[in-house]
């Protein structure tokens, strides 16, 4: 009787372990508001890879995060078979290269790849910091300068979309690719900035192509469940501002 029980338990355990392993092979340390984390999630979705999302809480860094990304201590971190990969664009490259039999994320031509990589780097180094600069701008003049800068660079991105898509629905062509993911992840925060600043940046009037692209992007099956609602993100933005301001003096 005792032996029968053990046998049944161990079979159940094996099934549970197998189920757990399939998902826990791939872990993503992240947080739902982060556009960088979203890049990794979209890429995993494109490849139909099951993963476990481990949400970091605002204000504290888990031991696992500190162990997995000791250099930068930031999310996202992809942990695949216990090996960490850091930096969102590097993670997207990794996902594309490891799960190479799934739909391609990077373009196949080396020159197209270089172009896509260039624009992704531009977004991270210039565009997104300028977007964040609007909220931190002190005074009317600084705010206007920040707003103008974002508007100008969006016009550049609109042109880039036209050139690279060549009439197709996405930067990547028929389906979403590297640059769609690299830029699309910022749409939530762009909408929040539009709300708080009162300025419209991405719309039919100013960026007609990107406006339509944004709708398509957000509706994509790889994107729609991980794109946060603007309202929810706006609430989080308020929380974040409070958190950064520190306790009342």
């Amino acid at each position, binding site marked *: 009787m005792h032996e029968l029980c053990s046998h049944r338990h161990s079979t159940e355990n094996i099934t549970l372990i197998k189920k757990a392993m399939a998902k826990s092979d791939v872990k993503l340390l992240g947080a739902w508001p982060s556009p960088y984390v979203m890049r990794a999630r979209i890429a995993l979705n494109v490849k139909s890879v099951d993963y476990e999302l481990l949400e970091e809480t605002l204000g504290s860094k888990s031991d696992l995060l500190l162990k997995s990304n000791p*250099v930068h201590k930031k999310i996202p971190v992809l942990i*695949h078979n216990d*090996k960490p*990969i*850091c*930096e969102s664009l*590097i*993670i997207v*490259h*990794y996902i594309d*290269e*490891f799960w190479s039999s799934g739909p391609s994320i990077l373009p196949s031509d*080396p*020159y197209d*790849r*270089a172009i896509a*990589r*260039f624009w992704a*780097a*531009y977004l991270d180094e210039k565009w997104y910091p300028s977007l964040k600069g609007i909220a931190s701008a002190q005074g009317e003049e600084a705010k206007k300068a920040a707003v103008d800068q974002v508007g100008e660079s969006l016009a*550049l991105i609109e042109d880039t979309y036209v050139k690279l898509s060549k009439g197709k629905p996405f930067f990547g062509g028929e389906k979403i690719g590297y640059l769609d993911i690299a830029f699309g992840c910022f749409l939530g925060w762009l909408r929040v900035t539009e709300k708080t600043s009162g300025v419209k940046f991405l719309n039919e009037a100013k960026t007609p192509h990107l406006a339509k692209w944004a709708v398509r992007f957000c509706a994509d099956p790889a994107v729609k469940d991980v794109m946060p609602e603007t309202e929810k993100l706006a609430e989080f933005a308020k929380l974040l501002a409070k958190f950064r301001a520190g306790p009342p003096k």
Partner: protein
Amino acid sequence: MADEVILLDFWPSMYGMRLRIALAEKGVKYENKEQDLRNKSPLLLQMNPIHKKVPVLVHNGKPVLESSIIVQYIDEVWKDKTPLLPSDPYERAQARFWVDFIDKKLYEAGRKIWTTTGEAQEEGKKEFIEVIKTLEGQMGDKPYFGGEAFGFVDLSLIPFYSWFHAFETFAKFSVAAECLNFSAWAKRCMEKESVAKSLPDEKKVLVFLTEYRKSLGIE
């Protein structure tokens, strides 16, 4: 069909050096067009209208920008010879991570050393040594960052070595004294022909930076 490869470069540019090394490793013939950054050429402005910076690789008339992107482009186009990136996806991710780390941390720390004095310079020096030590730790016992073969991380880092003499002179320290393994790695890289012929004389770099500092009114 012959490839036309032009490199828009500036002799002390660490980023330009990366490309000289990469192209030499691949045995690619190219024309080096030295740029005057105080008086930017129409070609440079046409090829890099957004950032207006060097280096730029112009391949059959088409510009490729950003040194780490250009190195990957070179590796992918001239793929039949001397791979610069590892083939394993995880190893590639690691290589990209460390090049990104170098780009984010080392240049800035170095810049503090040569563009400031006093406390700010001390801070730059401390950061600089910390970055080198982190990289040294990452390399461990391996001859190169990638392991047995010279690769992406090595060629992205070794150009900074040509500026060390200037940094050490301005901030009065010695990298070799603080980071033995790093110095051994650097000497190993300098023994390679592709590296030795791509890096400028460190004394020439010191003269250049000293003059530049003067023109900026530092010291």
